[in-house]
């Protein structure tokens, strides 16, 4: 959602400070350095995000112990639960112990259900990952093909891509979802309107129940990736070195698919990273629209019910996802641009 | 070197700090020279010779690591930004790229007038008069003041840049490759203009260029730079006609002369020299 600002963003500095690699060094250590750098960078990110949400939560007027016990509970029971939950300790102590537990995979218990947060998250993770990975693959494949084709061919296909990208950018995900349900589930009854079937249970049903949510989720990413691919390809195809390579006999296919695509790859991977993070956020909406039991839906429920341990856990998981996406993008960068930060 | 030259540069060294570890990069090493009043001193060298860095150091755009630079008796190495501001009308600059040196969103008049912001006690009409005078001096129509840089050719823009430099009545102008982005016929116009203005206003120039013929044409004295150090200096005709340092000779030999017969002879002489060594 937030990442939509990247449409039309031509000048964004590529992940700026992340990498400083000396150009003469051999390849492998460079990649390792990128990895180490990004992972080191991830630590403060995770700390800042979780500490921020922890502090914010501690400012909440409500009291989880009260909410868990209900209004009729005795004062003793309340105080006992408070100390059991560690609520009588200072915020930073609570945070440290949460962090230590989290490192061991224990994210606490839900105030609302009383169940383990880690288990709840683990149970819902496959849904969200299926959604995000499928949407990402779909939008990458369609976006790249459409973008490269329209840049290489020009003419009407370029204008069409520009217009479709704009519409794709303007359509709100929830509305796309509603329209898809209206058309394919209610009118034609081809596909299920909601619900999720695990892959292990019935692969075909799993696939069918993902079609509409993935389409709704990917609309925006397809638009953004095809537009950015097209623009990046146009820039490269118009550049001096392509003109000179063509003048000296390099074939068109190689010019488009090897020379230009690798140069344009930098910008495409920037967009791809932003879109992947955007898709992750989009699951919150899509899972609500299609009633899918994923992390996004869990986050919305938790937010509504003030189930803070749950939301805290989801924040952690999403942040880790974001870190992983950034690592992948950085690796793509170091391969695509031999000059990464050689300035 | 005289005691009372307008600009005195003594043992100037410019070192850029390294990024991270390392020793840093010394762009200029132990350079000393004078620019007397109403004189042009040419700095010539190839890329990386430090010729532009010297100009930038005098203007306060590059750090003076060691040495001193005195202008009109004032030391510039440790000058406060307020004092430098007061100096700005006396010490000016003309850059190489006439397209980058004018802000496309401001009118010519606004751009030229910037050099007057620190000249106190000027009424609006005096200011307008000065702008017109400066445009006259560089041979631009007065109507140019209300227009934007986009309307002018490279040569005209360079005239405008010169107007900006002279409007504050400077004593020294650093000319950093002022004609290397210009075509041959326009280069000649601009060089002539610079020389006329010198006669008219008694200016001094520190003229930085890679082209020995251009430098020889405008300068009284030439300094030849190689990797941050001066390798040869002297009266311009002497340096050009009888170079002493092998590097100066190499520079002169490398530049082809626009005369086919002479160039053929030079080439033969050079290959003969190469064969014997």
């Amino acid at each position, binding site marked *: 959602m*937030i990442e939509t*600002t990247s449409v039309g*963003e*031509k*000048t964004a500095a590529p992940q700026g400070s992340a990498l400083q690699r000396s*150009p003469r060094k051999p390849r492998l250590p460079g990649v390792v350095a990128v990895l180490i750098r990004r992972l080191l960078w991830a630590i403060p990110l995770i700390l800042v*995000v979780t500490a*921020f949400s922890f502090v*914010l939560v501690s400012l909440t007027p409500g009291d989880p112990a009260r909410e868990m016990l209900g209004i009729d509970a005795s004062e003793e029971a309340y105080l006992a639960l408070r100390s059991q939950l560690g609520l009588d300790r200072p915020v930073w102590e609570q945070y440290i112990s949460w962090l230590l537990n989290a490192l061991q995979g224990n994210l606490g218990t839900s105030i609302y259900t009383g169940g383990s947060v880690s288990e709840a998250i683990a149970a819902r993770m496959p849904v969200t990952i299926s959604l995000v990975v499928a949407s990402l693959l779909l939008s990458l494949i369609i976006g790249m093909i459409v973008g490269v084709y329209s840049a290489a061919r*020009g003419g009407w296909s370029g204008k069409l891509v520009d217009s479709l990208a*704009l519409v794709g*950018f*303007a359509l709100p995900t*929830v*509305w796309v979802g509603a329209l898809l*349900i209206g058309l394919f589930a209610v009118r034609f009854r081809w596909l299920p309107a909601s619900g999720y079937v695990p892959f292990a249970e019935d692969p075909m049903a799993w696939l069918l129940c993902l079609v509409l949510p993935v389409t709704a989720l990917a609309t925006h990413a397809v638009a953004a990736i095809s537009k950015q691919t097209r623009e990046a390809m*146009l820039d490269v195809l118009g550049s*001096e070195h392509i003109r000179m390579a063509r*003048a*000296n*006999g390099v074939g068109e296919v*190689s010019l488009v698919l090897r*020379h230009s695509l690798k140069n344009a*790859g930098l910008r495409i991977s920037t967009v791809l990273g932003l879109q992947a993070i955007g898709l*992750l*956020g*989009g699951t919150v*909406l899509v899972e609500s629209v299609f009633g899918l039991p994923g992390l996004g839906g869990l*986050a919305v429920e*938790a937010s*509504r019910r*003030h189930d803070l341990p749950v*939301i805290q856990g989801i*924040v952690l998981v999403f942040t880790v996802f974001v870190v992983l996406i*950034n690592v992948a993008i950085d690796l793509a960068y170091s391969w695509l*641009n031999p*000059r990464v930060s050689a300035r | 070197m005289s005691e009372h030259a307008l600009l005195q540069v003594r043992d100037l060294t410019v070192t850029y700090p390294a990024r991270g570890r390392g020793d840093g990069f010394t762009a200029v090493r132990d350079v000393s020279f004078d620019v007397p009043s109403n004189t042009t001193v040419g700095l010539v060298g190839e890329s990386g010779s430090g010729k532009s860095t010297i100009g930038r150091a005098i203007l306060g755009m590059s750090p003076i690591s060691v040495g001193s630079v005195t202008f009109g008796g004032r030391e510039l190495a440790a000058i406060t930004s307020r004092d430098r501001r007061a100096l700005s009308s006396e010490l000016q600059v003309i*850059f190489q790229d006439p397209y*980058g*040196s004018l802000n496309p969103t*401001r009118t010519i008049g606004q751009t030229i007038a910037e050099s007057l912001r620190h000249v106190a006690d000027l009424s609006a009409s005096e200011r307008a008069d000065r702008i017109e005078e400066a445009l006259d001096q*560089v*041979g631009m129509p007065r109507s140019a003041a209300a227009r934007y840089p*986009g*309307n002018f050719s490279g*040569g*005209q823009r360079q005239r405008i*840049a010169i107007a900006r430099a002279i409007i504050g009545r400077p004593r020294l102008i650093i000319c950093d490759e002022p004609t290397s982005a210009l075509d*041959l016929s*326009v280069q*000649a*116009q601009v*060089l*002539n203009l610079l020389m006329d203005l010198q006669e008219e206003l008694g200016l001094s120039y520190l003229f930085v260029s*890679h082209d020995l013929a251009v430098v020889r044409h405008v300068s009284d004295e030439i300094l030849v730079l190689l990797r941050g150090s001066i390798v040869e200096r002297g009266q311009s005709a002497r340096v050009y006609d009888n170079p002493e340092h092998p590097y100066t000779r190499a520079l002169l030999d490398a*530049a*082809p002369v*626009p005369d*086919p017969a002479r*160039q053929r002879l030079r080439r033969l002489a050079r290959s003969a020299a190469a064969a014997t060594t």
Partner: protein
Amino acid sequence: MTATKSSRKESAAAEVSPHAAQSPRFLRRLLKRGLARVCLAYILLLVIVAIVAPMIWPEVLTERTGDLADVNQLPSLQHLLGTDSLGRDVFQRILVGAQITLIGVAQALAVALVLGVPLGLIAGYVGGRTDRVISWIADLLFALPGIIIILVVLAVFPLSMTAAMVTLGVLVAPGLARIVRSAVLPVKEELYVSAARVSGLGDAYIITQHVLPRVAGPIIVQASLISAAALISQTGLAFLGLIVEAPAPSWGGMIAEGLQNLLVDPWLIWPPGVAVTLTTLALGLLGDSVRDATTEGWAGSSTKAKKPRSRRAQEGLEVEPADRNALLRVEDVNVEFRRPDGRPVRVVDSVTFHVGRGETVGLVGESGCGKTATAMSIIGALPSGGYVESGRIVFDGVNLLDLDARIMRAYRGKEIAVISQEPSVSLNPGFRVGWQLAEVVRNHTGLSRRAAKARVLQLLQQVELRDPEQVLRRYPHELSGGMAQRVVIARALAGEPRLLIADEPTTALDVTIQAEILNLLRRLVAERGMSMILITHDWGVVADVCDRAIVMYAGEVVERGVIDELFAAPLHPYTKGLLASDPHRSIGEHRLISIAGSVPPPGSWPSGCHFRTRCAFAVEACAEGESPALRQVEVAHDVRCIRADELEDHNV
């Protein structure tokens, strides 16, 4: 040659360009665009609606049910957009909902601008440690899973749209700061900023007067995109019922209500969805228009103009006997470029010349005279928008303009190769030198991978590169200018071409490197019996390398001849003036000879002789009719000037 004695005032006044004053006033340019006007009008209308509608129908904000007898109605005159499942008027709810929508968008936008713009300006302008700290924080915030953070905030501040939208603004601000920063960086390096510093102007003045106006475009673009993104996010959050408390109408909430009633009344999802989409489109299109308006003028058109077929193009190939031993004959070639508005502009005007076998021909002239366009038209490598309007380019008996694209490709590199001015940008920065050369070699020869590598090594040795094994493994940015130019020459040699087109091959190089490259080119041409077209503005290079020279001015050949004669006895006033203004030739004189004014840009060439407006010898007859014909004066020495005979002994 007026300049020697004439006043400076005249000389420059003649130069003032004929274009009407083009003020870069941004708003005026924006409003010239119809689309921008429509978007602005829509947004303005929406703002008015958002203010007025809640005043007209204050009850809509609190109304839980409408007329329960009148639920789920389709649009009618009474209810323009029908009624919802509780009998409320959908039209009223959409209009009143605009207020909540716009307030939320404005909150997010304001926070993003207040945080992002100053941080970006400071990071870009101050640089150094400040920049690193700001960039680090921006990177950190930018990487947050945005919507989850908003959910956390909403868990703490239930149903607070302000809290959600302020958080959104904070989360978007780093992206804005980053864009502002990268827009500031090049502006900071502009020479006019340095000039302002030299003039003693303070940082605050420079930031507000010089930097901010230059980055205003990107900021406005981002502002509209951020608004659009905020609207989309807000719709999602309202859909989830997290930011607007029922029964107050919000567009997102109305989509949720529509979804719940999808089976009963499929109409209900349409009005709010269309409202959000239209508003987002308006904001996004406005951003695009602003971007186009700010880059207008310097950006070329992005679509490739189709190359119209040459006038004389015929079916099949037209093969002629090669006469006069010429390898290449360029006959009456006109080259035009299509402007962004579609009008063609002629840049090369009926140019005719030939290149003999083993001969080196110089194309000489100032910039904007059509030298490069002429040369690139030979190989069909004109930049986008350019095409050969008419003429013949006969290479070894074959008119290249008649060839179809596939056959033409076989000529590129194999018969005719090109090296360009800027070696550093004529190699692909993303691939190693060895790979790039091997690809060309394999294309031309079909050699195996290993054989191609051996051939590449051999080529690198031929261009006198030391340690070719090591050069193979480098990327272009790891080469010096001279080395890169040698690699480019090696690529040009890979197909054993018979004609080499060298476009200012040494202009970007230092003079000592230039001498080496010129020697290399001369040697290669001699050894291989290649022909060469050398484009240059440097008379010294012509004298050093060429056999004959062709002088171009304003799209035309004005003089051509063997160099000894051309240098000793130039005939055209332009050639005379250009030679005389070379400081290498006028040693010892105080003033240089100069030619008044500058080369007129394509599209504004004068009638008659193209040079007459700058010519000291122009008479009335020069302005009449077409440009004078190119005529032979001496053996192999032609000139395009009606007064050439009178002026023969007249030196400037």
